[in-house]
């Protein structure tokens, strides 16, 4: 007899593929389901699913609930909520996972209300308690100064998960799995908001939240011009440039690029912290980076207590030769 779907993820598409966060949900969800001896399901809503159902199975799903309709083209909360509420209620999972993205953070709280359950948003770790079998959801609170572990008393146990908190698996195209098409129904009278358009703004490099490498400059940069150096540095990895609040307040950088408690939260593989002190306001936005490299004039700067590698000195003398060296490596064969 087939095991029950206990872990259900709500996926997002990026173009005609699963979004990276969705792959991570499947990887992490797979781990949770394995320790429960259960199956993993995923819901995919789209205008046209293409091969994403098969992709989801390759990444760890056992069942794919695939709803396709023209009205699912763009994310619209009341549309998605109606469709999802029905699917989730029908599947009846123990655990429901979403990614902490612009869509996930919009959708999850309202879905939780409709399912009359709680929600642990922006989790950085999920684990099954071996004694109770319940989901322990760990999330940063107080701007990352503390970690809270939550256990949900209602069902499903629902969490949104921060990007890069879970690990996606290597895709296995031979994995068995089942795609279950769902016919979405829509009650137009319940739609209260409408997507009008998406405006893509010209940003150099990739969006901050998705960047694998982020170079961030603080108050010590001294002016807007200095950020060109960071652009050059980040470019080597196709990364993005951020700034601290004092730098944004001084008008050197647009506030859309602010990293920190009241700005963006990023968790890249490499975070290059240049001429910034590492205030707790700032670290709330980048403390989860896999590797932090600090360049600062002040050897006592707080950032060095977070950094894996550090250079003490004036960035004006360190960045140019560093960038030069990286460029050389890119151009010529390694010596």
């Amino acid at each position, binding site marked *: 007899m087939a095991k029950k779907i206990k872990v259900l993820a709500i996926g997002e598409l990026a173009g005609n593929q699963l979004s990276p966060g969705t792959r991570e949900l499947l990887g992490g969800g797979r781990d949770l389901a394995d320790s429960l001896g259960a199956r993993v399901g995923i819901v995919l809503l789209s205008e046209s699913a293409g091969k994403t159902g098969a992709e989801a199975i390759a990444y760890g799903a056992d069942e794919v609930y695939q709803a396709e309709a023209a009205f699912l083209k763009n994310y619209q909360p009341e549309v998605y909520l109606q469709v999802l509420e029905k699917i989730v209620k029908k599947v009846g999972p123990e655990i429901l996972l979403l990614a902490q993205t612009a869509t996930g953070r919009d959708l999850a709280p309202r879905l939780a209300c409709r399912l009359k359950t709680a929600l642990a948003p922006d989790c950085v770790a999920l684990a099954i308690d071996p004694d109770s079998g319940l989901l322990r959801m760990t999330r940063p609170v107080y701007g990352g100064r503390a970690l809270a572990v939550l256990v949900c008393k209602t069902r499903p146990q629902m969490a949104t998960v921060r990007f890069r908190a879970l690990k996606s698996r290597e895709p296995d195209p031979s994995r068995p799995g089942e795609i279950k098409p769902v016919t979405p129904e829509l009650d137009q009278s319940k739609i209260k908001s409408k997507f009008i358009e998406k405006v893509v703004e010209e940003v150099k490099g990739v969006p901050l939240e998705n960047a694998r490498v982020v170079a961030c400059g603080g108050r010590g940069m001294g002016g807007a011009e200095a950020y060109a150096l960071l652009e050059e540095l980040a470019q080597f990895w196709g990364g993005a440039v951020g700034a601290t609040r004092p730098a944004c307040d001084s008008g050197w950088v647009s506030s859309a690029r602010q990293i920190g408690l009241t700005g963006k939260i990023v968790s890249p593989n490499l975070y290059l912290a240049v001429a910034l*002190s590492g205030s707790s306001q700032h670290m709330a936005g980048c403390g989860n980076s896999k590797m932090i490299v600090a360049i*600062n*004039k002040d050897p006592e*700067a707080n950032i060095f207590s977070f950094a894996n590698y550090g250079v003490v000195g004036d960035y004006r003398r360190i960045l140019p030769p560093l960038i030069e060296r990286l460029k050389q490596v890119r151009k010529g064969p390694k010596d």
Partner: protein
Amino acid sequence: MLLDLNDYRNDMKRCARCSICKWPPLAQMKSWRFSQNCPAISRFNFHAYSGGGRMALGLALAEGKLDEADEELSNIVYRCTACGACDSSCKYNSELEVLWPIYATRARLVGAGCFREEHGPIIESLRREDNPLMKSKSERGRWAEGLDVKDLSKGGQAEVIYHAGCLYSFDPELSKVARETVTLLRSAGVEVGIRGAQESCCGSMAFQLGFQGEFIKFAESNIDDWNALGARKVVTSCACGFGIMKAVYPLLGKKMKFEVVHISQYLDELIREGKLQLSKKIPLRVTYHDPCNLGRKSEEYVPWKGTEKKVLGQLIVREPEKTVHRGWEGVYDPPRDVIRAVPGINFVEMERIREYAWCCGAGGGVKTTMDDFALWTAGERIAEAQSVGAEAIVTACSWCERNLRDAAAAQGKKMQVLDIVELVKQAR
């Protein structure tokens, strides 16, 4: 934690209501007219406004007998310039801490959210603009425009850094003092750097108002910046900055790789070394007003932690011994020596001087939010200066200068108020 009311319970309990906090010691009194030392008790004349009364309020708060949200409590707590005269007077007789429980009471109210609404904009301005004056931080370095001085916000290092302070940076009348300071230092051969638009408040105002958290951020970032800029000497004109850097910054436990010097000390040193020569005669009868933060409040504060034993039924013996701050170690002589070095000057002392000096009235946030009280207090000081026949008050603090000038103007009194730097500049 820096300011916890509970740390002062014993001091507060031991206040015997002797009221010595309200007066300079008898041996220091020269007349009945200028015999009081506490602006708040002199003005409001009710025990709660005195150092001792504030101890009683603090104790009641610590013991949970008073509600932090009490409106009248807040009125009393903030009608005080935190000048510390009560503390110096009390130490003449006993060894109680009086000023720090006053600070700690404020920190307690602030922590409970019971700060005064009018302090909100000051703190917000500190958070956004790095100054308590609601001025844009981008304009901070403007006072130095056109001066030949190294602006460290554009890179580089300097062994001597001049910290102008908020009021000298932004007050259109006083920023001249900052310019003259730099010119004087340069002419004495000092390679001085400034932080330009990146200079930030010393945090003194936040500290005095009880916003300890805000203060810590300013203090730490200043120490970090000065260390990183390679400073060996931080020179400031701002007495409030000097006082807090000397008395409180060391409590944060951060390594300060520089010494903090007030401009009056530095000028004194440069004059003695012959690097600054004063040649112009200034035939003026002047007196000197001791800024609280340059004087008694600049003594490094060493919080006492240990055990107290009662011997013979009443004597308190402390283990380890307590460092008692009597206000004796403040900067009193250097500014006086500088004045005396001015050719032709006629220097005369007022009645209340050094650690028993009467406050100008601007401190503790009073100038910004209760100007009438500040002006009244300054008026008292001007009257004292007039009583010794002074034509000018020389002082060494921007807030004192601002307040004394405002009071002289408002009360129609003929009294020149000079910064010590202005005096030296005139004598060059």
